[in-house]
Each structure stands twice: as structure tokens, then as C-alpha cells.
């Protein structure tokens, strides 16, 4: 085998190996998945939907498809305002949200006072969001009252589960 061929192959191999690495990194770049972190330093309310990243384009469309029954003024997200998960939000897209320490809950509470299946939040047929206590040990509180029946959630009312407080926001 001639020296030239071998040199070309040697450099060619390194080039191909690095090409693989670069392609793999490109795949990672186009594969931002899992959680979306949005920093909000702007005034809320005045500007309900600040500039959103590119990946954000899909969810609102879906929301319209899924519901069509969402009324104006209906809450669009659930926010954890106290407890270890403070700052976590979950978009409300017509699905049932389960809360508890069980690992298959939508929001897994890391809270000693919560039961494994503590409560659920779901929309009724009119799109009104309802919170229901699932027979928890320490109870679920809406404002100051302990829940005994499924109860509609007013916008911004604190729902207290153990040390965690969540509320629905627009």
C-alpha cells in the first residue's frame, strides 16, 4: 500500500470520527427536551405572555385543539407557591392533575404531611377546575376550609396540602 493512500486514510478516519462527534452534538442541540425553563423578570399581568422560546409554539395550539371549551378568564396554569417545589408550574391542558407522594403523580410532593395519593384537580364538563381530596390523612384545604366534597377552584385561591401551597393562575 502506498504511503500516500495510508496518509489519506489516516486523516480521513480522524475527519470521519470528528464528523460523528459533531453530528452527535448537533443532535443534542436539536433535542432540547424535558423541561423548559423560562426566566420571568418582566411584569406579569401587563404582559401576560412574554417572549417565548421557539419550542413554546406547540402547546397553545394543542390547548385549543384539546379543549375548545376553555372560556376566557379560565386559569391556564397551576403554580406551586409554597413548599419545596416553589416555582414549579404545570400548564393546564384539560388533563387531570394528581398530587401526592406517589411517584406516578403529576406533581410528586416531597412533603411529609402529604399522602401518597392526596388530591386531584380536574376540569368538569364546562371547563371549571375542580379540586377533590382523595381521602388523605391530613386533608386538603381551600383557603381555610377543609375539603369534604369536590369543590370548584376560584382563580388564585390557595390550595394547601401539608406544607405545599398551590394556586391556579391565568
Amino acid at each position, binding site marked *: *500500500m502506498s504511503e500516500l493512500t495510508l496518509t489519506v486514510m489516516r486523516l480521513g478516519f480522524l475527519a470521519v470520527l470528528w464528523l460523528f462527534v459533531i453530528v452527535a452534538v448537533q443532535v443534542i442541540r436539536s433535542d432540547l427536551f424535558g423541561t*423548559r425553563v*423560562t426566566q*420571568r423578570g418582566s411584569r*406579569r*399581568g401587563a404582559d401576560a405572555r412574554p417572549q417565548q422560546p421557539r419550542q413554546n409554539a406547540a402547546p397553545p395550539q394543542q390547548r385549543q385543539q384539546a379543549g375548545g371549551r376553555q372560556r376566557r378568564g379560565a386559569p391556564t396554569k397551576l403554580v406551586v407557591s409554597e413548599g419545596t417545589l416553589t416555582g414549579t*408550574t*404545570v400548564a393546564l391542558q384539560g388533563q387531570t392533575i394528581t398530587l401526592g407522594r406517589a411517584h406516578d403523580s403529576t406533581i410528586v410532593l416531597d412533603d411529609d404531611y402529604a399522602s401518597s395519593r392526596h388530591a386531584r384537580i380536574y376540569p368538569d*364538563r364546562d371547563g371549571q377546575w375542580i379540586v377533590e381530596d382523595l381521602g388523605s390523612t391530613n386533608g386538603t384545604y381551600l383557603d381555610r376550609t377543609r375539603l369534604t366534597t369536590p369543590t370548584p377552584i376560584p382563580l388564585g385561591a390557595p390550595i394547601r396540602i401539608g406544607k405545599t401551597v398551590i394556586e391556579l393562575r391565568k
Partner: protein
Amino acid sequence: MSVVTNTTTIGAIDAPSRRNTELMLLGFAVAIPVFAYINVGLALDGELPAGVLGYGLGLGLLAGVAHLVVRRFARYADPLMLPLATLLNGLGLVLIWRLDQSPRLLARSDFAPQATNQLMYSALGIALFVGVLLVMKDHRVLQRFTYISMAVSIVLLLLPLVPGLGADVFGAKIWIRVGGFSIQPGEFAKIVIAVFFSGYLMVKRDALALASRRFMGLYLPRGRDLGPILTIWAMSLLILVFENDLGTSLLFFGMFVIMLYVATERTSWIVMGLLMSAGGAVVVSSFASHVQSRVAAWLDPFGCLETAPEASNMLNACDQMTQVLMSFGAGGTLGTGWGQGNSDLIAFAANSDFIFATVGEELGLAGVMAFLLLYGLIIERGVRTALAARDPFGKLFAIGLSGAFALQVFVVAGGVMGLIPLTGMTMPFLAAGGSSVIANWALIGILIRISDTARRPAPSPAPSPDAEMTQVVRP
């Protein structure tokens, strides 16, 4: 409502299944080793190697089976892990085959060609990978085996010490011999003990993180919470003393400290872990001769080559180390090219512990960096999986597995390059050795399973029976 807040919002992005990307990368990952194989044949004999078709088809078939299983049973899994592991495994096979061709090595009595065996072990590894994906539908079932896996891992680690079963190979007692096969139980124990650590830390992390006193800027845990870390420390020291295996003990202790840190977010654990491992290493190296010779070979390989007594363990260690360093040096920036280096001069364990020296010589710094990046990408995907996992057990498990993988790469690559004293561990996927490649395929299988669970979009709400449309009878 117009309050200025600075909160962070975390919401889900719909993750598409990336299986076609994976298939494209897999094709690439099979083509590169075939290219390397042809290159070795052309450089050594001037003609296409006879086995190239069989080798290419074999690797392609294995990768294809793995891909189809992932496509069917783990649709949303990470698209990069399988191609990266396939590429490393394929290149490892080429490296081993290339060293099999060396007349210098073939002349030695303790050398036997390994490439065919390694291909078989890779097939077994892929079979285990497939098995993991088929049997384990959800990684959270492993949580039930927290304490069983502790017992299993201790048994696995102690097996090499059982008389009649354990085998002493050049000072390190980390193998067992069962019916003609030698198995390295430590490689499997690494996965099993990760199950225990994640199950245990998931339950105990609050006690470990919160019940502590502050002293000189560090959070010191209570005495009774120190129990587990002291136990693991003592266990890894015992491995070091009785099995003479620095690598495994470093791997286990390091993995535990990483997982403790991730679970509790307390820097003090890292500080304590570093102090304890440094203390342990100093004490042990002062009386274990096996470790002493490795340290001497690390500090001054060329000097100790002259001062070491004839035919001693230390002379062997220093000789290997000098050959390895010469190998890296001879490679330079771009390497000598496949099949044109002299890394076979390392002689003993050239195709297992020291296989990275062949990469360094024949592919040069550019190749070494590419290999380290491939490992880095696997680790990055593992950590990303841990970040995305929704359950604490899966998070800790994924971080433990990728941490163990990272530590192993660091310990081997660092040892071979002379950054730390050399330890008898295998470079994941590259080095000849059945246990290592099989265990690492299982590790990748588990990571793929966790990443599938993590990236799977949340299930759509169950249709409520009340919401069904009422049929209207039309006249």
C-alpha cells in the same frame, strides 16, 4: 397582579420520538469501525482483510437488533446513547483485532487472539441490553430491591476472595473462574450497588441533608447519619486491602459520594469524601506492595525502571508505564495511522487495561480527544436523563450509573496517561474482557429505559364516560 417577580417556570416540551435520528447515527456508527477495519488490513497486508464482510455484517446486525428493540419497547429513549455505545464497541473490536495481528504479541505465551471472543461477548452484551429493555418495563420496580441489592453487591464484591473460586491475576484478585470463563464480578456489582444507593438515599436524604450542624462553613451531619458513608468507606478500603484493586474501591466510594451530593445538595459530603479517600489511599499504599509499585511507576516511571529490583512486580509496572508513555508520545497530534504503531510493545494487557495507548499511538491526540468526547457525550446524556427524570429514584439511579461510568473512564484514562496511579480497570466498551462489555451494555440499557420514561409525553387524560356524545335519533 403587576408584581415584579423573578420565578423560574418549568414546563414540559413535547418530545418527539427520535428513532430515525438514532437509525441514521447508528448507520454512521457501524460504518466508521468498518472503515477502521479496512484501514488496518490495508496498512498491515496491503489488501482488504478477509473478515471485513463478516465483521461489518455482525456489527450491523447487532446494532440493528438493538435499534429495533429500542424502537418497539422504548420509543422515546435518548437517540444518542445506542449509537455512541455501538461506535465505541465497534472501534474496540477493531483495536483488539489489530493487536491480534501483531507478531510480537502472538509470540508471547500469555497472549491469545481475542477479537472473536470479544465479538461474542458484545453479542451477549447486546442480548442483555435487549433483555433489560424487554423485562424491565419501568425502572421503578428496582426500588423494591433496595436492600436485596445491597446484599447482592457485597456478595459479588467478596466472591473473588472465596478460595477456589477467586483467581489472583498479577496481584489483583478481582476475577472469579467458573467453568473456564473468568468473570469480573465488580463490573456487575457497580450496577447493583447503584440500585441500593439510589433506593437508600431517596429515603434518607432529608435526614442527611437537614439534620446537621454548621461548623466552619461546612454542614456536619449528625454522628448517627454518618453510619452509611463510614460503612461504604470501610467496605471500599477492605476491597483495596484484600483484593488489591484500587480502581474498584475508588469507583464505589466515588459513586457513593457523587450520589450523596446529588441527593443532599451539601458540598460538605464532597469535602469529607475527598478527605476520607485521600486518607484511606495514603494508609493503604503505605503497606500494600502492589499499590506501592503502581505509585512508584506513576511518580517516576523512567527512574524506577533503573532502580527497581530484577524480575519484581515493580519492574513490570514501571516497564508497562514507560511503554505506554512512549506510545502516547509516538502518536503525536495525528497519530501513526491504523496498524502502523508499535503499541504492541506494551506486551502484557496491551489489549485490555492499556488499550487506550493504542488509540493514543495510532490515532494521536486528535483521536484520543474524539474518544474522550464520545465517552463525555454518553455521560452527558446520562446526566441529562437524570435531570429529566420525574421520580427521585430514577434521578439518583441515572446519576449514579453515569457517575460510575464517568469515574471508570477517568480512572482508566487518567491511569494510562499518567495522571493518577494506574489501576487495573477496563476502558468501557473498548477493552478486551467479557464482563466489562456485558455489564456496560446492561448499564446503557437501563439508562435508555430511564430516558424513555423521562422523555415520554404525559399520557392524555382518560375519557370520562359522562362526556360521551348522546346519540340523536333523526327522523
